[in-house]
């Protein structure tokens, strides 16, 4: 039977579109209280007083938690989670109190009128390339090295025939999943139970256990349906902590959800990034030097360094290379994971700079990439498990009609439109993390499989069912799948495009082990069960560079009357190992590319330095691409059989679509207009006065 690799509708699709599926706070017990967060209105300082008396006197109010009366927490290695532990305000919008009431309306009104007094201190909220606070962190995110150098990049630049030097900027970006962060928490005999909108119930349970001084089995977190995360629910934010505290103090279940406005200040975000890129190439376009210096911000509470320069380290060959990360602490909330952290802003900078180099050197941008294909990972020297970057470009070129492209910028006019095309590469590491799984054969011939996957809308539930059915050699209908429950064997977080590979590995291992036992054992009445873990298997893997690749080609049209940009045509071709379910894979790639379009043209957190926080904090003022912005998207993937990836032979497709996407758009806008916008998003005001007419 072949189940994996075939189109399978989402098993929970019908429940979702008919409203039967319940999310987060919709799953609260009837007697649940409602909590509402009160947020600091100063960017830095101290809380000097909170008039809780008036609030507590309001009918319906059950409790007001402040730093004075909130339960004390243990250290869980993330100071952003130390909510209501002292009187310090580290950023505008930080939670300074929690109102708990019988109804949502009362909680909200009392929270919005609570009298909180502050002592303010001067604040600093703006990142700059020359910010005096910039320093070299010990590490960037995900274990990436802070700095790395190969040869002497200054010499490489000096000896180059063609040099490009430019600074590229991306603004603060917000994940904004449809379902906000939300938790229902209650306590039963000293044990904590929660329904949380999270990308991983195992890490959430572990963190809650640490914070509340519990053993891990005393915490159970479930997340049956999660309305998206894009990384923002990859690590717990303040919501589960506050809900658990309120439930503890009141002795009742407590429901807490962020509003859309709060999603811009309490849910993490992608830091603004500044990239100084220098590329040098010889007369033939062979890179002699790559230098990528990346700058980003973090909070005063926690260090989070976007690994922006990590992308190029593994991507293109160069005789010399230098990559650095510098970060500065500001009076802002802590940035966090957002779809392709590091790779996304990094590829925007590098793929844009390559386009500039192609123009300077007079070489077709696809050809320039071809000339700099590495034999082995330039950073580590490890061979690639598979690398079909140029095959992706070639197929994309065929689909798009790239051949014969006129390289000159700003010369194609169609009525009031200037027309151009652009290209960028995409790449994302193919990772896997240890996971456990449980497989049980039942006497009636059906199976139960438990794996702590989380389905954040990606289709993970469906794909895990396919994996189990394939390995057990039964129909999916014969498998009863359990996911998203921290009582299951430990599962990896739904992040890093590694979920399917990680959980699937454990599912395959459990099912294979079960089948081999079934070959010799009878299934007893209580069922035959195996429990496995993949930690050892992962350790035993060869040292290889494992990455997925892609090529994106875009047509952009710019209206000379207004500077408005439209993208009518877009081709993305990817090589990402085995595609487990074409339907759900396509929607991930399409979603990633669309989010990249949105990053290129629309998304921007606006800062007013005088106030701190983000000035725009709703979806009317923080634009994401609308349906009308998305043109004709063509998505294909290449066959790829890579035996070095684990039993599912898949690379992960959740993030790669956004990598390089914004550069492809920016390059096409340049080709259309001759205007190089190096600071996203590309909005009419950045083009208008340089357009003809």
């Amino acid at each position, binding site marked *: 039977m072949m189940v994996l690799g075939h189109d399978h509708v989402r098993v929970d699709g019908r429940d979702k579109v008919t409203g039967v599926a319940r999310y987060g706070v919709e799953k609260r017990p009837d007697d649940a209280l409602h909590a509402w967060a009160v947020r600091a*209105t100063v960017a830095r300082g101290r809380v000097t007083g909170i008039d809780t008396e008036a609030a507590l006197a309001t009918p319906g109010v059950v409790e007001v938690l402040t730093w004075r009366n909130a339960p004390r927490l243990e250290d869980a290695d993330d100071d952003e989670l130390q909510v209501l532990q002292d009187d310090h305000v580290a950023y505008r919008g930080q939670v300074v109190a929690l109102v708990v009431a019988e109804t949502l*309306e009362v909680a*909200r*009104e009392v929270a*919005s009128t609570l009298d909180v007094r502050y002592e303010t201190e001067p604040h600093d909220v703006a990142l700059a390339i020359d910010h005096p606070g910039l320093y070299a962190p010990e590490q960037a995110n995900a274990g990436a090295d802070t700095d790395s150098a190969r040869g002497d990049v200054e010499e490489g630049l000096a000896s180059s025939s063609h040099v490009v030097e430019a600074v590229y900027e991306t603004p603060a970006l917000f994940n904004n999943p449809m379902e906000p962060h939300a938790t229902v928490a209650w306590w039963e005999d000293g044990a904590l139970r929660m329904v949380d909108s999270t990308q991983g119930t195992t890490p959430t349970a572990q963190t809650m256990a640490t914070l509340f001084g519990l053993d891990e089995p005393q915490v159970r977190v479930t997340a049956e349906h999660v309305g998206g995360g894009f990384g923002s629910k990859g690590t717990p934010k303040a919501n589960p902590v506050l809900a658990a505290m309120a439930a503890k103090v009141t002795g009742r279940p407590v429901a807490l959800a962020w509003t859309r*406005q709060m999603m811009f200040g309490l849910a993490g975000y992608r830091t603004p990034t500044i990239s100084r890129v220098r590329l040098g190439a010889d007369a033939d376009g062979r890179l002699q030097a790559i230098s990528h210096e990346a700058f980003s911000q973090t909070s005063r509470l926690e260090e989070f360094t976007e690994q922006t320069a990590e992308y190029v380290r593994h991507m293109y060959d160069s005789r010399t290379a230098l990559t650095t990360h510098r970060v500065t602490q500001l009076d802002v909330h802590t940035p966090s994971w957002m779809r392709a952290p590091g790779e996304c802003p990094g590829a925007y900078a590098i793929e844009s700079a390559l386009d500039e180099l192609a123009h300077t050197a007079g070489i077709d941008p696809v050809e320039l990439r071809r000339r700099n294909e590495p034999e082995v990972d330039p950073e580590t020297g490890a061979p690639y498990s598979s690398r079909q970057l140029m095959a992706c470009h070639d197929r994309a070129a065929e689909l798009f009609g790239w051949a014969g492209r006129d390289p000159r910028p700003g010369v194609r006019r169609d009525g*009031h439109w200037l027309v151009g095309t652009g290209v960028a590469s995409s790449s994302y590491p193919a990772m896997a993390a240890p996971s456990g799984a449980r497989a049980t054969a039942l006497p009636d011939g059906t199976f139960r499989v438990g794996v702590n996957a989380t389905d954040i809308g990606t289709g993970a539930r469906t794909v895990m069912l396919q994996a189990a059915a394939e390995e057990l050699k039964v129909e999916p209908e014969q498998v009863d799948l359990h996911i998203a429950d921290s009582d299951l064997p430990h599962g990896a977080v739904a992040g890093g495009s590694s979920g399917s590979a990680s959980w699937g590995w454990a599912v395959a291992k459990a099912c294979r082990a079960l089948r081999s036992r079934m070959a010799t054992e009878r299934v007893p009445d209580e069922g035959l069960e195996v429990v496995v873990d993949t930690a050892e298997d992962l350790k035993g893997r060869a040292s290889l560079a494992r990455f997925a690749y892609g090529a994106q080609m875009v047509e952009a049209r710019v209206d*000379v*009357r*207004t*500077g*408005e940009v*439209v993208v009518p045509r877009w081709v993305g071709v990817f090589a990402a190992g085995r595609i487990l379910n074409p339907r759900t894979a396509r929607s991930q790639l399409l979603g990633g590319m669309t989010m990249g379009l949105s990053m290129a*043209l*629309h998304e921007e957190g*606006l800062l*007013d330095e*005088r*106030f701190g926080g983000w*000035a*725009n*904090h*709703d979806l*009317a*003022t923080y*634009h994401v*691409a*609308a*349906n*009308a*912005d998305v043109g004709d998207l063509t998505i294909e993937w290449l066959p790829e059989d890579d035996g070095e990836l684990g039993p599912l032979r898949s690379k992960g497709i959740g993030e790669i679509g956004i990598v390089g996407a914004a550069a492809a758009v920016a390059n096409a806008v340049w080709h259309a207009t001759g205007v190089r916008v190096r600071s996203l998003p590309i*909005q*009419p*005001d950045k083009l*208008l*006065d340089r357009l003809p*007419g």
Partner: protein
Amino acid sequence: MRAFDYVRPDTEDEALALLAEPGTSALAGGTNLVDLMRLGVARPERVVDVDRLGSTEVVERDGSLWIGAGVRNSDLAAHPVVRERLPALSRALLAAASGQLRNRASTGGNLLQRTRCVYFMDPTKPCNKREPGTGCPAVDGLSRDLAVLGHSEHCIATHPGDMSVALVALEAVVHVRTAEGDLSIPAVDFHRLPGDEPHRDTNLPAGALVTAVEVPLTPLAGRSTYRKARDRRSFAFGLVTVAAALTVEDGVVADVRLVLGSVAHKPWRATVAEDAIRGRAASGSVFDDAVRAELAAARPTDQNAFKVELARRLSVATLHELAGGRA
């Protein structure tokens, strides 16, 4: 959100009596007011639901189209007379908000929608419009989307709507009922400039009800159009919008209307430009010169200077398209 009383009167007289009390707001489709209440920007003690009182009729009478205050934006946009004889109005409505919002939004409520200035929308920050006397942080702050014409040191907000820009170009009249009697306010005078009273968006007397909008069905109106430049292809407020109408006889402009949206506290009727165009050849640099003359009065901030150039390009292009029969 503050607890409030909700009343649904059966007659306009009852509604007017209720609206006379301070702390009372009229509610129609609720797409603006309810948002502002949730945010704590509007905090009425009492909400008077006039949604079912407003006429939902669109009728042709005495050479005009009469549009009831309760007519939904989507119904109005699709009305055959509007589509054929008032194209600027239909296009303006369809350029606004989203399908869902247009299904809900009323004609009266649309006229009275409030600014989208980010400080106005955030009760944790000062704003003269929301809380008179607290100051205007937008003047030296985030002003990219705000006014370039007719603003004051007290407020640089814009009227963000689309429909009213077209109504001004079409020389519509807003019909109003007050406790003292009926009023007719020309659309061009309905919204006001901020001056030193930025909390007042319009010249509608307190407690009054908009009952209908009357739009003359002239040949000029039939040669009108609406253009909206924005940051995304749909569901975005305008950066600059243009409602224009033009008739040409023997290569000479017989009549013209030019109104700019999203550039001022009210739809900006470009009378300087209109006067410079009327009776002149509909070609060459006439339109450009005229629009430049109009925009000479612009006083942009660093952040919104582009809107002046955008207004120029969009106006000139739209006028040329109308002159060439292409709009």
